[in-house]
């Protein structure tokens, strides 16, 4: 089982993600914005990051860039309400292992997490 950091400024989305991932046996860490998320990544070295895009403070794409600077091997899945194909392309180009759309559904989250962890 993996240690997974959720970076999302929505408590509702963090809670929904936590429920899905804990049910699958993962250990969960949370951060309510990008800056705290980067700190927690540095301190806790999670196996995977679930990252929101539209957040107050740092945008998720900026957080992703910083994470990849800190750790080029960082595994990140973007979890966003933005369903645009162009956003998916930007996220993939920026080095994320995957993108899942909100609302979060277990059948979408768990396969993406498994694929990222096995990559």
């Amino acid at each position, binding site marked *: 089982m993996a240690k997974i950091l959720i970076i999302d*400024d*929505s*408590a*509702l*989305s963090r809670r929904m993600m936590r429920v899905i991932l804990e049910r699958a046996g993962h250990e969960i860490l949370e951060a309510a914005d990008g800056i705290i998320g980067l700190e927690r990544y540095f301190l806790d070295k999670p196996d995977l990051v679930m990252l929101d895009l*539209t*957040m*107050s403070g740092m945008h998720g794409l900026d957080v992703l860039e910083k994470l990849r600077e800190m750790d080029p091997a960082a595994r990140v899945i973007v979890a*966003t*309400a*933005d*369903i*645009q*194909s*162009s*956003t998916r392309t930007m996220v993939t180009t920026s080095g994320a292992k995957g993108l899942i759309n*909100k*609302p979060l*559904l277990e059948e979408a989250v768990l396969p993406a997490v498994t694929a990222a962890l096995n990559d």
Partner: protein
Amino acid sequence: MILSDEQKDALTELINIAFSRTAAALSDLTGQRVSLNVPNVAIHPIEELNTALSEFIIGEIASVHQIFSGPVSGDAMLMLSYEGANVLIDILTGERQGSGRMDVSGQEVIMETGNILLNACLGVFGNLLKVHVTFSVPRLHLEELNSMLDTLVIGKEELRYALIIYTTFQIKESSVTGYLIIVLGVASLDRLIHAVEEWAQINA
């Protein structure tokens, strides 16, 4: 500015697809069937916006307001009656919010719900019209319609007319009825119409 029948038909179809995606997202969130009425498309002079919206929204509202920018920019809003917002929080959290003042946790639930629904709607626009739309962080307003409308930020120079697209939706087995509203200025409206015409031609 008047839309031709063909333009209005193509625009309504695009909006229908976008709002259907929104209803699907709300259904996924709540686990309940969501019914959607046929979207209405209307163009109003900006000074009549308040009057136009007041026709179907009365009293205190809970609205989530998100600014979007890109080739087409404007304001998108999810509007719920205050009571309906409390019912939606109950459905989503499984906790009884009651009919009193919405607490911080409840406000946060409505804000994220608005974020998901507005992204679902505008994301379809972006995908179908092949333009990239950037979203601001959503803001929640708990006030009368007048005060909320003061916060619209579409470019001042183009604030002469606004396209109002709205629909009502209802979550089955509950009394939640809401409105999705998109306000565009003239310049963005012109670009949107042009993109919609291209989209309609490609798919005709």
